């Protein structure tokens, strides 16, 4: 406590600003790298869609994939309006189980 106070009086930064730097950089680069090439988000969207359609019939036009940032994490948010679940998938799982 006393050392902290003393440090603050002496204008010393809070300890471990290294961790701050590393985390902030990590977050900022997630955005930078994703936005740097429109190709990245489009390709991700395409691949997601192709996997999803094995299970459901989705509305490709309304598929949304975005990066959302909260304080500590960047998350990939997807919104996929589903038209119907594929019956053939259900049947296939029944057979194997």
């Amino acid at each position, binding site marked *: 406590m006393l050392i902290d106070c003393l440090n603050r009086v002496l204008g010393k930064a809070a300890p*471990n600003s*290294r961790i701050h730097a590393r985390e902030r950089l990590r977050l900022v680069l997630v955005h930078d790298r994703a936005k740097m090439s429109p190709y990245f988000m489009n390709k991700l969207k395409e691949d997601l869609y192709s996997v999803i359609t094995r299970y459901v019939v989705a509305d490709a036009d309304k598929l949304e994939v975005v990066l959302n940032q909260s304080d500590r994490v960047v998350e990939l948010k997807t919104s996929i309006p589903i038209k119907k679940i594929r019956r053939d998938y259900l049947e296939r799982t029944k057979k194997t189980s």
Partner: protein
Amino acid sequence: MGEIIVVTSGKGGVGKTTTTANIGTALASEGLRVVLIDTDIGLRNLDVVMGLENRIVYDIVDVVNGNCRLKQALIRDKRFESLYLLPAAQTKDKTAISPEDMEYLCKEMKDDYDYVIIDCPAGIEQGFYNAIAGAEKAIVVTTPEVSAVRDADRVIGLLESSDLRNPKLIINRLRPRMVRQGDMMDIEDIVDILAVELLGVVQEDDRIIVSTNRGEPAVMNLVSPAGEAYRRIARRIRGEEVPLMHLEESYGFMGRLRKFMGLC
């Protein structure tokens, strides 16, 4: 056949020009034929860092425009016979040359020199694309700061999409004491984030300022830790395996003695 290497960073002020000057001088001091090209047109600086500013007659734009032959524009270093500088123009801007011009110049010099080292301007505009056009390899310089590493990441992406794959990283101006205190990103943090191969680490060194004041690259100073770091980097460029320096413990006997006596 020479190697053509571009030194780049994205962010300004991280030490591209100092790095170019020191690597070039270190290679030339081993007897290799080296030419340094300053592509920062309008803001030339490599000439003053090298201490050759009074000898400029022609510059890169003169060569490109056909006002002189390439040989006439090259300035031979006063200390090392095999070291040359092709200075940038100060009165023009970055559009005075094109990527095709750079490709042509690099091809012209490739056979006559062991290393052609290109000092790239800051930023990612035309000047950047000119500088990298003729290069076969790239070095990215960064400092252990969030802004510099971010820009380095962007530049690495641009280099890779311009077919300069696997650029090598130099971390410049690292302060070992601050790293130990947890107040500066460490080598591992940066290498891990950027995911590129490390070429070397240069610690913060006041002698760099002194050497720039004098126009004598730090590799000529045997007690400068930054000079030692650049000599090691030069050896790695030649293909030698050289360990990283022990940071702050590599002053040499005289350096330690001076430090002990409080002289530096």
